[in-house]
């Protein structure tokens, strides 16, 4: 493989493939190196994608057999106690018509393969079954290519785009992105549960092709700072649950046991009843936020997507940031090729592109959100059951005057939470979003 490419891209996920598409559109000679047997073989996400950002790369994606599972018309948020929970939801007709495919679910094994096919059709080269084990550098440290696990596996390139995802031994080895600390990643596990299409439509009150997302907080993460989701696919549900990795270590909780209790929660069990588990996977989510984004460019290289820790926890947006940052990286590379200058000062334009986009804007806006969750463990420990108690009491009709019930609830709430702690929770929460 001792060939010379203009651009070597590590990883055929949304970031790498978006970059490959933009480069191919501009006639640039790029190669994508993917460690899986096919693009998507190693990839996983909760399962939603965003039409706006995909259409930036493939404008007519819906007409090109994009493997969309369900178009999302309703978003639910649950706050769960041990025995029940609160649910808030919003559904809008606009998401079935003019805003169709604003959000939709995908299985990444199928979607990423399709996405890579689009890049191939544009003329990009995608080489699978190849792990990039190191970067080639000259005496000054300027990146000049990649080393792979193939026998004659060195490959020269003018510039390398690191789009290899959040779990990147390569980033750690080269020092271009420090290894994340356990406190800065969440470990999530996912189970895909097969159910007949019409059963999903009945349970979620949807018409065929349309679906629902549910984002879940509360006691389901066993007191740890974490989140769970249920997403509807065409003939399956995606159930994910995750928590801060440092919390898993401290509490000695096994992720798959937490997943099982989640599946048995009274609000979850009826939804998956009769379903057949089909796949079980695990992945990290970047939780460091804006303040832990590494330097995303240097002499001869750029970093995009999850590798650059570009992830918005609150709005569960990651794959869109991967696509957009991949495209920005490609645009920067195109300029660099025209100037024939791949130094860090030439590639710095990538950072300004990110600064001027929603990516850095949103990550800055929510930079206090992860610390908020970290600093308020009561959100996951005592508060879910206290709020559950409150609703249960108020909804129980037993002849007790409501005023007396309110007093009882207030007293219960105050046993675990001081007034100042509750005010601080509200204030910090308000300030973090």
């Amino acid at each position, binding site marked *: 493989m001792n060939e010379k490419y203009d651009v070597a891209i590590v990883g055929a996920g949304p970031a790498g493939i978006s970059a490959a598409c933009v480069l191919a559109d501009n006639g640039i000679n790029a190669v994508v190196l993917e460690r899986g047997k096919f693009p998507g073989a*190693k990839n996983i996400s909760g399962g939603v994608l965003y039409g706006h950002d995909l259409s930036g790369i493939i404008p007519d994606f819906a007409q090109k057999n994009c493997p969309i599972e369900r178009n999302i018309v309703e978003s639910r948020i649950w706050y769960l106690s041990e025995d029940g929970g609160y649910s808030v939801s919003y559904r809008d007709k606009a998401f079935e018509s003019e805003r169709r495919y604003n959000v939709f679910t995908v299985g990444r094994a199928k979607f990423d393969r399709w996405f890579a096919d689009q890049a191939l059709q544009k003329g990009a080269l995608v080489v699978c079954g*190849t792990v990039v084990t190191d970067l080639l550098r000259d005496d000054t440290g300027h990146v000049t290519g990649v080393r*792979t696990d193939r026998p004659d596996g060195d490959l020269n390139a003018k510039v390398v785009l690191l789009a290899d995802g959040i779990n990147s031994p390569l980033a750690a080895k080269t020092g271009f992105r420090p290894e994340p600390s356990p406190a800065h990643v969440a470990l999530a596990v996912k189970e895909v549960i097969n159910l007949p299409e019409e059963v999903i439509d009945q349970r979620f009150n949807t018409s065929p092709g349309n679906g629902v997302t549910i984002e879940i907080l509360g006691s389901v993460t066993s007191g740890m700072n974490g989140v769970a989701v249920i997403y509807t696919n065409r003939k399956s549900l995606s159930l994910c649950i995750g928590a801060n990795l440092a919390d898993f*270590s401290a509490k000695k*909780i096994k992720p*798959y046991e937490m997943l099982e209790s989640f*599946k048995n929660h009274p609000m979850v069990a009826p939804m998956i009843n009769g379903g*057949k588990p089909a796949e*079980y996977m695990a992945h990290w989510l970047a939780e460091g936020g804006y303040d832990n984004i590494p330097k995303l460019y240097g002499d001869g290289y750029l970093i995009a997507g999850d590798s650059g820790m570009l992830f918005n926890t609150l709005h569960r947006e990651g794959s869109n940031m991967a696509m957009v940052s991949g495209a920005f990286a490609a645009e920067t590379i195109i300029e660099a090729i025209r100037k024939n200058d791949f130094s860090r000062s030439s590639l710095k334009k990538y950072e300004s592109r990110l600064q001027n986009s929603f990516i850095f804007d949103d990550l800055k806006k929510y930079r206090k959100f992860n610390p908020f969750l970290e600093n308020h463990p009561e959100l996951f420990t005592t508060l879910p059951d206290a709020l559950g108690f409150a609703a249960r009491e108020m909804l129980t009709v037993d002849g007790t005057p409501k005023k007396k019930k309110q007093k009882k609830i207030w007293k219960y709430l105050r046993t675990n939470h001081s007034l100042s702690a509750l005010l601080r929770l509200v204030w910090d929460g308000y300030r973090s979003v």
Partner: protein
Amino acid sequence: MGASIEDKLFLNRFNVDETSHLKIINGAVCIDDCEEKPCLYICPANVYRLEQNRISINYEGCLECGSCRIGCPHLNIEWRFPTGGYGIRHKFG
């Protein structure tokens, strides 16, 4: 339904490499110096199991998340991706 970790891993498709991509650097550290042994809990595939005087590595079911690598308090796990094309192969993703 899919209650145990073995049942869960059985759902997956793996192309198992002949050699392990995971290695404990110094086995004595696990037994003598590591009281918490978080690898026994945090690994979502239950790859690490405590046997009499050592920790065994059942790399065949590794989900390739990387948690053991950064979660080991002694950074005592040598971790690489399985050789290209090997390891887990997602069906749905």
